């Protein structure tokens, strides 16, 4: 008799994120290159947890969309001699899976303290996510169709049609995250409040999405360090456990599919909630991959926070704001804090679970979930003691 693989990495309280570090600010970093930004974030992450360069025996290097940072050169400039070193795709979609990979390397005994290093100077490098450089093998540029955002807009318009919904209700998402950013000293849009009127008059990039529905493009670097929990307890910060992580490929926002990746998210939901022993009602805050506002709708439905076609109503009336039932991206997220392809919102999750978030602290946060975008639908659940 054979059984299905569990398809979920379940670690309970065995693996912990012990340290997080970011560049000293986000935005533009003309004064140093992508390697220098990584060094700054690494220094801050080591300071955060009390580990030293010699303790880091595993590294995953996720090069950003700007200057290329090959992993071997990164290992040199970080001054480490890791037993395990992998280069990693810059794709934000692969960020969720990277957590499972790191935790698995710790859990299987291949290393004790692994760092994820991500650095991106996309702003300074003038990176664009649409236009001449993005053709690849696709026929889309011939029709003037380009950029991930245009794909998100195409899918969202179909979603509105499918469920007969009001496009303007989407405003609740960028408005909530801009409010959260106003409470975050690191947020790029900290001092740029957004009103419903401004949102409604915001220019379209690709109708039905407005500029406020798009993530920022900026520079910054993130490092976080994961360790075996028995070692983590001796470090400076309380451990944040990676309770469970899972992913599902095969559904794609670029393929004009009917179900808004619902089945992929359902599969991941079943696995991570099952392994972590929690459900949607236990989630104290949701950190989601907000490259574009509409993604949250598909996550909320796919993970069972609300029924199908109900997400635009679910997000109204402050429910996803701090103080609401399900605060999301309490840092301001990719829309208003910084776009570092999923990495910065994990720093926020860790800080929330440690209780370090000051004015934007979710009271007594104990369970925080991350959800990332198909084509690698992914999720992981972080907990504290």
């Amino acid at each position, binding site marked *: 008799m054979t059984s299905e693989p569990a398809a979920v990495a379940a670690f309970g309280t065995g693996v912990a994120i012990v340290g997080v570090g970011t560049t000293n600010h986000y935005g533009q970093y003309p004064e140093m290159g992508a390697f220098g930004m990584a060094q700054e974030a690494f220094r801050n992450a080591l300071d955060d947890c009390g580990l030293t360069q010699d303790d880091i025996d595993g590294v995953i290097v996720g090069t950003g969309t700007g200057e290329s940072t090959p992993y071997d050169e990164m290992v040199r400039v970080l001054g480490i001699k890791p037993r395990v070193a992998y280069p990693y795709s810059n794709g934000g979609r692969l960020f969720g899976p990277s957590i499972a990979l790191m935790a698995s390397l710790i859990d299987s005994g291949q290393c004790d303290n692994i760092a994820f290093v991500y650095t991106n100077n996309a702003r300074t490098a003038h990176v664009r996510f649409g236009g001449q450089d993005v053709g*690849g093998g696709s026929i889309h540029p011939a029709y003037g169709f380009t950029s991930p955002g245009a794909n998100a807009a195409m899918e969202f318009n*179909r979603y509105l049609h499918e469920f007969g919904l009001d496009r303007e209700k989407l405003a609740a998402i960028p408005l909530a995250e801009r409010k959260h950013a106003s409470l975050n000293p690191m947020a790029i849009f900290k001092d740029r409040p957004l009103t419903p009127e401004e949102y409604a008059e915001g220019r379209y990039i*690709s109708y039905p999405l407005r500029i406020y529905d798009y993530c920022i493009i900026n520079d910054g670097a993130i490092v976080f360090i994961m360790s075996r929990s028995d070692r983590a307890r001796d470090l400076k910060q309380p451990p944040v456990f990676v309770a469970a992580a899972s992913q599902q490929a095969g559904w794609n926002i670029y393929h004009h599919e009917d179900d808004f990746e619902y089945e992929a998210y359902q599969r991941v939901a079943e696995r991570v909630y099952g392994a972590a022993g929690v459900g949607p009602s236990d989630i104290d805050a949701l950190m989601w991959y907000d490259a574009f506002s509409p993604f949250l709708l598909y996550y909320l439905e796919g993970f069972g926070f609300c029924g199908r076609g109900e997400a635009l109503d679910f997000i109204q009336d402050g429910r996803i704001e701090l103080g609401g039932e399900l605060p999301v991206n309490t840092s301001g997220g990719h829309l208003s804090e910084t776009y570092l392809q999923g990495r910065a919102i994990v720093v926020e999750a860790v800080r929330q679970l440690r209780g370090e978030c000051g004015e934007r602290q979710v009271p007594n946060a104990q369970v925080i979930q991350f959800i990332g975008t198909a084509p690698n639908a992914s999720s992981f659940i972080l907990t504290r003691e």
Partner: protein
Amino acid sequence: MTVTDYNKPLPPISPDSQPYWDAAKEHRLTAQRCDDCEKLRFPPVNSCWYCLSPNTTWIELSGRGTVWSYIIMHQPYYQGFIGELPYPICVVETEEGLRFISNLVNIDNAEIEIGMPIEVVFDDVTDEVTLPKFQPAST
């Protein structure tokens, strides 16, 4: 090489897609059909992605379909499209069930609706390349 003032991106033509573009030049809309499982697929690729059979026949589509979804592009990503902003891009769902990106033509942006019937028209953009596009179906 023909001299042309067409300054929009041209589609990449590969060994797999050459028959599609050859047919488009003849104003025929085509797609691959697997000889074994008989499923249609697009974009073109050597083998069937349902059953991995390499046995394929190019068939002609009816050219009729509906708007599955659309966007109106406002952002000037390509020099060649700037004069047409804001312009519509749709996902066509063909009668045969295939979905792919195209442009809607001969219609005002405000009149576009998801589900509306459309039909193919062929835009000979250069001597070498014809782009299938779609317009409201003639009744």
